[in-house]
């Protein structure tokens, strides 16, 4: 297994084939004769693959690497000695001594006829489209058309991202396999028979009205340009890229590798690259959400707040008109101003008056230098980032019980699982490409237990759907734990050999029978028992969770229960088992590893540990590092309001949108004496800054990013910096120098060298290897280590080597619904928009797909309130209110309201409760009380001026019907 790790594509190929359930092909190399030459096919290679590797091209259209060979186009026919009929080389495996001819008269004739038949009804390829059909036709010299062209279908231009031009379709079904087998979105079908056979979306709906989630996999798979990305620039022309750059997707923690196509220094397309975490797949954000970098609102010059313009938490600056509030400045002036402002507060109020928020969107190198700057330059541990808001409680529970906050097994391990539990996560929306691997596993036979208050998309694929009442995770999970002990399904050996604290857990669990808990969590006892049994008795079972678990005042307890579940059954430390908190941001794992957290130095060494302090004091050349834990995100905001924190440096984070009770957070930011913000847009946070430093966007920089799988991957710069924008690394280092540190300017590769010393678990990963292999999994302590994809195989990294059971009693959330606020408010994300929307709402396709803030409610709840989809409603909590359109969504349970937090014009976080989990210090984003009523006035259309006008009026109502209604 591990031998294949790191060989790009090899494992993927093997797994893809296993997933098909077809008999295993040649397990050993095979010698056979190809066109008279003896060659060797590698294990699992088809005739076509072996030929290609020996530079013998065989025409092929329906076959493409990564998809199940289907053998339908018959362009790849070869003649095998002794066989009556020709064979499709894309699906035939050679056997020993087989004699294959790719160019016999008969084979060539068959290949050419296929090309002719297809070419006859195909249009000339659109300019810039490199049709594989035309390429092979040229190569084989096929051009004669012996029949006139038939009438061809009209283009379908109903989708904002994808053009459908079926006149160019050759029925190869690559798109069908991409959509159904690879992404398992089940949108594209092959309808009708014979020459009437055609590609359809759903029941032959226009693509734009179908259930398509715009992952674009079909576009990437299509060999002829029948499916094309909508042109975002220079309509009518599809220029070939001037260069392609191998990089990464900037959005979620899955860590998809991409190929960025660049022309005229602009991104002009993104393709999925065969990375270990994505195997060439992408989602709508990664594939189509790239043009934000070219948005006219990009900050291109340093800005300084105009004299006398007050900071108004209630009236944020217009991101399209920064000069109303700020004036442009030179880098020299802006950096001096930033450094002076912070320095002055340091002198007058001491290090504790300063704080920094780094970003999980930045690289490891940026995160590392950022926390180092705060610790060494500011002299405080007041440094944090948005991991606090997503998985702090998960990490707290993991650190407490297994002494490691990272995932134990990678997403791709789900291939080996017989069963997996997904709880409090909506991967098809938030980790779409990870979700494809889960769906692949289910197609292969794995069983899914889905636990979530919302009936999310994965429910369609689940064996058990546990739609429990919001806030009752612990009741449900304890009942499952109870069942496992009660029914004798616990793994006695594992508990005896590898854990501590079983007795205490078992004792506490006695009170948590499913029969008692069913009334609390709303899941019938028999169902709880069945799910627990399935998890416990499966040979290999995995757990994935998301922020539905972590973002509660009892988030740490929720995670403790999940850890106990794995420990109790011994479902950890092996392939296809383990614990996987799905990380949110593209570098949230890395930012945490780099010590961008107030209680830990890099590699999770506690700041309170004198040995750790001594080590980093030495490495960083400052003996008197702050010995106290710093404040966390929400605590810093509170401290700012109390004037305990007075100055901040915020890089690439947007607390003015992402914090709970965001009005309060905005007040806190406004209350700061001095705020430096480094970002690519005038975010809500930046609008309260004193100095704004224009930052580099993802495709403009090179650095490493660590995904949810503990894979360190290399992102490479594809674009030059626009305007006067500078590299973030340069900015941090310039500030450091102005704060009196003797830092020289170093590139990412150089900073990585230092990181290897600071983070020994990644110490074996060299920059050269990253450049070569693009991704390396840690732990990788010594150069040449393959990297451990499964950890805890022998022991846990705790002092005793054993994991700990920590019992968790059921407690209620902080703010249950009541008469005045009768509904539960759940926040989250939608597929098209990332986090606070700063990037995605400035990406044309994404903005067009989801332009307006929506509140989703159950049909029954709408009926109760006399509301129709598309009506404007006001949602109010004890902290604020927002107005948005209401969407009918049967996935939302009655009694609840769901709202994404990406929309500034209706910022969901104005409503959320800042109450913290006592251990993880994570706020309760997933549960507070609200009331909903019809709004007096409709919300204004906002956004960032891309598609807004298109959606004014009736379109919005159509959209409000939601996917389930269409």
């Amino acid at each position, binding site marked *: 297994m591990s031998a294949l790790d790191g060989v790009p594509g090899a494992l993927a190929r093997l797994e893809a084939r296993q997933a098909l359930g077809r008999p295993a092909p040649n397990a050993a190399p095979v010698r056979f004769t190809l066109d008279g030459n003896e060659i060797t096919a590698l294990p699992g290679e088809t005739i076509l693959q072996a030929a290609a590797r020996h530079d013998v091209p065989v025409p092929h259209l329906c076959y493409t690497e990564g998809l199940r060979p289907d053998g339908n186009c*018959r362009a790849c026919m070869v003649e095998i000695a002794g066989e009556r009929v020709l064979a499709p080389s894309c699906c035939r495996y050679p056997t020993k001594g087989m004699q294959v001819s790719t160019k016999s008269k008969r084979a060539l004739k068959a290949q050419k006829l296929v090309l002719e038949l297809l070419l006859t009804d195909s249009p000339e390829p659109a300019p810039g489209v490199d049709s594989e059909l035309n390429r092979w036709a040229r190569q084989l010299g096929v051009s004669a058309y012996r029949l006139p062209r038939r009438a061809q279908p009209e283009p379908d231009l109903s989708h904002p991202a994808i053009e459908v031009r079926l006149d160019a379709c050759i029925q190869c079904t690559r798109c069908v396999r991409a959509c159904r087998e690879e992404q398992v979105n089940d949108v594209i079908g092959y309808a009708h028979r014979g020459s009437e056979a055609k590609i359809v979306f759903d029941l032959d709906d226009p693509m734009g009205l179908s259930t398509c989630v715009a992952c674009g996999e079909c576009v990437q798979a299509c060999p002829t340009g029948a499916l094309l990305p909508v042109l975002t620039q220079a309509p009518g022309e599809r220029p070939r890229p001037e260069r392609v750059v191998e990089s990464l997707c900037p959005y979620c923690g899955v860590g998809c590798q991409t190929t960025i196509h660049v022309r005229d220094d602009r991104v002009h397309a993104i393709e999925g690259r065969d990375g270990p975490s994505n195997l060439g797949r992408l989602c709508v954000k990664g594939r189509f959400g790239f043009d934000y970098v070219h948005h006219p609102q990009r900050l291109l010059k340093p800005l300084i707040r105009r004299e006398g313009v007050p900071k108004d938490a209630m009236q944020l600056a217009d991101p399209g008109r920064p000069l109303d509030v700020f004036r442009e400045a030179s880098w020299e002036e802006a950096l001096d101003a930033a450094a002076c402002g912070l320095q002055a507060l340091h002198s007058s109020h001491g290090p504790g008056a300063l704080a920094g928020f780094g970003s999980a969107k930045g690289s490891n190198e940026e995160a590392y230098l950022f926390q180092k700057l705060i610790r060494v330059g500011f002299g405080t541990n007041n440094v944090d980032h948005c991991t606090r808001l997503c998985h702090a409680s998960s990490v707290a529970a993991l650190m407490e019980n297994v002494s490691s906050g990272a995932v134990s097994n990678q997403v791709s391990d789900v291939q080996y699982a017989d069963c997996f539990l997904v709880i409090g996560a909506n991967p098809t929306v938030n980790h779409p490409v990870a979700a494809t691997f889960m769906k692949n596993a289910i197609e292969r036979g794995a069983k899914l237990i889905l636990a979530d208050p919302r009936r999310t998309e994965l429910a369609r694929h689940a064996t058990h759907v546990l739609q429990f009442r919001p806030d009752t995770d612990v009741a449900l999970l304890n009942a499952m734990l109870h069942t496992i002990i009660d029914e004798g399904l616990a793994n006695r050996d594992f508990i005896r050999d590898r854990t501590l604290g079983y007795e205490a857990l078992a004792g506490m669990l006695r009170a948590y029978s499913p029969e008692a808990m069913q009334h609390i969590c709303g899941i019938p006892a028999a169902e709880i028992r069945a799910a627990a049994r399935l998890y416990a008795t499966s040979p290999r079972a995995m757990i994935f969770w998301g922020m539905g678990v972590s973002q509660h005042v009892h988030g740490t307890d929720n995670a403790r229960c999940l850890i106990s579940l794995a420990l109790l059954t011994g479902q950890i430390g092996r392939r296809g088992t383990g614990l996987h908190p799905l990380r949110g941001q593209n570098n949230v794992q890395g930012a945490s590893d780099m010590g961008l957290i107030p209680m830990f130095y890099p590699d999770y060494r506690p700041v309170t540990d004198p040995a750790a302090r001594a080590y980093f004091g030495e490495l960083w050349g400052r003996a008197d590092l702050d010995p106290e834990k710093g404040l966390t995100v929400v605590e810093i905001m509170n401290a700012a309001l109390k004037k305990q924190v007075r100055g901040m440096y915020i890089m690439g984070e947007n607390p003015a949108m992402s914090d709970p009770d965001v009005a309060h957070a905005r007040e806190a930011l406004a209350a700061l004496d001095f705020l430096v913000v480094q970002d690519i847009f005038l975010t809500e946070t930046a609008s309260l800054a004193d100095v704004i430093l224009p930052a580099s966007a993802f495709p403009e920089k090179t650095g490493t990013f660590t995904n949810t799988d503990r894979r360190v991957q290399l992102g490479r710069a594809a674009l030059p910096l626009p305007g006067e924008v500078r590299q973030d690394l340069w900015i941090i280092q310039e500030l450091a120098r102005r704060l009196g540190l003797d830092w020289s300017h170093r590139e990412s590769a150089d900073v990585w060298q230092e990181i290897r010393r600071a983070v020994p678990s990644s110490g074996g990963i060299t920059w050269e290897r990253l450049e070569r292999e693009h991704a390396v999994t840690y732990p990788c302590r010594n150069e040449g280590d393959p990297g451990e994809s499964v950890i805890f195989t022998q022991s846990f990294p705790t002092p005793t080597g054993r994991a700990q059971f920590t019992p968790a009693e059921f407690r209620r959330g902080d703010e249950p619904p009541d008469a005045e606020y009768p509904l539960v408010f759940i926040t989250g994300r939608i597929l098209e928009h990332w986090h606070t929307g700063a990037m995605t709402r400035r990406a044309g396709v994404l903005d067009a797909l989801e332009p307006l803030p929506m509140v989703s409610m159950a049909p029954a709840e709408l009926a109760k309130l006399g509301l129709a989809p598309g009506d404007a409603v006001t949602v109010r909590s004890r902290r604020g209110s927002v107005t948005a359109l209401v969407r009918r969504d049967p996935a939302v349970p009655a009694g609840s309201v769901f709202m994404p937090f990406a929309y500034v014009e209706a910022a969901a976080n104005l409503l959320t409760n800042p109450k913290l989990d006592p251990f993880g210090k994570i706020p309760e984003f997933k549960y507070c009380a609200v009331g909903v009523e019809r709004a007096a006035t409709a919300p204004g259309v906002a956004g960032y001026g891309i598609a807004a006008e298109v959606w004014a009026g009736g379109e919005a109502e159509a959209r409000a019907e939601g996917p389930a209604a269409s």
Partner: protein
Amino acid sequence: MAYPYRDEREVRILSAHFGDPEARTLAGWRQRGGYEALGQALALSPEQVTEIVKNSALRGRGGAGFPTGLKWSFLRNDGRPHYVLVNSDESEPGAFKDRELCRWTPHQLLEGALINAYAIRAQHVYIYMRGEFFEPAQIVARAIDEAYAAGIAGPDVLGSGVTIDVTLHLGAGAYICGEETALMNSLEGRRGQPRVKPPFPAVFGAFGQPTNINNVETLCTVPHIIRNGADWWRSIGTDKSTGTKLFNMSGHLVRRGNFEFPLGFNMKELIYDVCGGIRDGRSLKAVIPGGSSVPMLAAHELDIPCAYERVATAGSKLGTASMIVMDDRTDIVKQVRRMVEFYAHESCGQCTPCREGTAWLARIMRRIEAGQGTEADLALLVDLGKNMTGTTICVLSDSAAAPVLSSLAKFKDEYLALIGRAAPVAAAV
């Protein structure tokens, strides 16, 4: 109800009870010796049963003539779930034998299928029946119910402890679903289109598990072989084509219908004596001997034994022994065009040569028929037809090409007449 025609020379084994409604019931069937063979088989080991079928040299009656016992022996005792599929999709123009077997002798079919299931250690039999077979489906369903009630199907077959379930599944009007792997896809609820082979059904069949599939007639034969022995079966017919076969006679004949004869029976005799020759005193122009998917034979080529190997030497195939006989008034181009249109309509549409090729053939045939063809079109037909043969996932493509190629070889003058090179033959009559 008496069955339409009988002939003294027939050897009625499978069709012995055609026209006898009593034989449809379990009691009636048992009186006629029914389910004795199943009992005999259950007393043997599965391998022994397969061995008997192998020794009988029985060849599949679904068209390809593949040795049945050999096919059964491909399934190994590997502990995986195995399935028996009964191919009762009979949709080929000219074929109507399986329908009659289902209508008159449903228990004969069940018995054969159960023996097959026992022999390959399958616990489930699926009978996939053409959707239009409304009456046969009702009859077979009733027989299944009777078999369950009598303990012949279900958890303890005839008290042997062996479990064999039987499910009847109706198709939905696609000829292609008679192709064995398309049938499997259809049964599984997928799009009914053939699968690429290898892997073959014995390795990757229904639901991805080892599967045996046989034609209705093939399985109906099995109980007789078990009861009377392989030698008995081999004593009928020729060396390479053992036993009897139902001949489905249709077209411009005086007597039409099913006739059961030992394989090797003379084709000319069959047409002229048994079926009384051509109607209305006309003469014979062409015969398609094995269902619409085999090459046609001209009148002078018919003095041959109806055995797989002998029809093959004559340049065609015995196929399902569904003979379509055409008289001298037949417009060959029109007939071929209609057959080609049938295949174009029924092509599942995945393989390029078949999807595009059948559509091309049909367009060219229509063009010729309308008098707008050229001689280049004939060359194109040949070129296309040859390249549609042996190049696709299933043989539907070959089947579409067969009538075109054989008619061009044997009746080229009729094509030439239509492209203005000779006087139209049809008009001369």
